[in-house]
């Protein structure tokens, strides 16, 4: 059976990561299985953990009163889900739902923040891994809101 360190090392988020970094993060990790329709987290809840998806698909959605929830993004194998744990007040601003059976490694947010605070080299390595993904998502969101396929 693969250890958490091995599982993390194989995740694209940790590609080329030093073994020591993976070992430190693995100390904050645990495995999850979410069945289709199960929620990873809900809007307003404390953002205590983020998730590295190893199998399956997760929909990020906004619940609009009087309407069906609107899905604005899906994340799949190799992605991470959740960024609100990075910035105060550490609360989720969307819902995250497993679209299909999803296996993910959850990273305890307070644990990782504490380790990054104590070890700025670790913090910088993590920042270098998160930031490009967050910037790509920002760019994608900008494209999405342009509604380029609509009638103009």
């Amino acid at each position, binding site marked *: 059976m693969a250890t958490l360190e091995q599982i993390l090392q194989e995740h694209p988020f940790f590609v080329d990561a030093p073994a020591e970094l993976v070992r430190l993060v693995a100390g904050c990790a645990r495995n999850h299985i979410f069945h289709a329709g199960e929620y990873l987290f809900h809007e307003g809840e404390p953002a205590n953990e983020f998730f590295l998806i190893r199998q399956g698909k997760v*929909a990020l959605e906004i619940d609009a009163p009087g309407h069906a929830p609107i*899905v604005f*993004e*899906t994340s799949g194998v190799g992605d991470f889900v959740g960024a609100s744990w990075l910035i105060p007040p550490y609360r989720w601003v969307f819902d995250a739902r497993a679209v299909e059976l999803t296996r993910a490694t959850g990273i305890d947010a307070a644990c990782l923040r504490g380790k990054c605070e104590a070890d700025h080299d670790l913090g910088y390595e993590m920042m270098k891994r998160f930031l490009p993904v967050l910037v790509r998502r920002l760019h*994608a969101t900008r494209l999405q809101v342009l509604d*380029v*396929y609509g009638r103009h």
Partner: protein
Amino acid sequence: MSMAGTDIAELRPADPFVPQIYRVDRVSRELADTVTLDLTPLSGSRPPFAPGQFNMLYAFGIGEVAISMSGDRAHDAFVHTVRDVGAVSGAIAKLAPGAVIGLRGPFGTGWPVKEAEGSDIVIIAGGLGLAPLRPAIYEILANRGRYGRVVILFGSRNPTEMLYRHELEEWRQRLDIDIEVTVDHADADWRGNVGVVPALIPRAAFDPHEAVALICGPEVMMRFTVNALRDIGLTPESIFLSMERNMKCAIGLCGHCQFGSTFVCKDGPVMRFDRIAGIFTVREI
């Protein structure tokens, strides 16, 4: 018949400004504002065309509009998918079977389906951009053994506004191509991807160093898509785009579709990215 009359009769079909008369054989409703028309000439057979080329369709008394081929080259008719976005396209989209329409063409350049043999193929379409790519898809699937991996990535506004959905589902049944579809937003019943089409690229199964990319969609989407392809290692020479500009004469004379030093109607609509990279993001070109 006089000699002069014979000359005129012989010249007329070759005159690129004179529309030929075509009959609407079939109308298929694709989306609320989009139809597909099968057009056959009133006399003779339709001219040959290359996937990626376009025709000028003339709604009598209203005007002309450039519309890409969207049908199979093996099909007897010209097939055009038309979205009602203005007076001319609106009039064409309202035509019923049996109606007649003027047609000039085919014009322009085609997708490099022959040149790409031996390569992986990644076809990336957004919205109605799937229509100009469909003839290339037919061609590639009909000669599947000549290509490496074939990947189709398609982005749509939402699941209910997905062009050729039935056909996408059919293609998806095949074991020899990969198809990923994404929508900008959806409700919870949608089990597919939500997000923009460039986000599908890093996960797609093709060799970026051995691939040829064919892209068609709104220009903003194509810009993001080119960046995503370049990020994973595709060269500018292996990326082809179908450009859209205001085509009028369709033979590079009037200048309405000028794009830098090129004319989209004559040097395009399919253009290799390295040939337009310098002006692709320049405003007002």
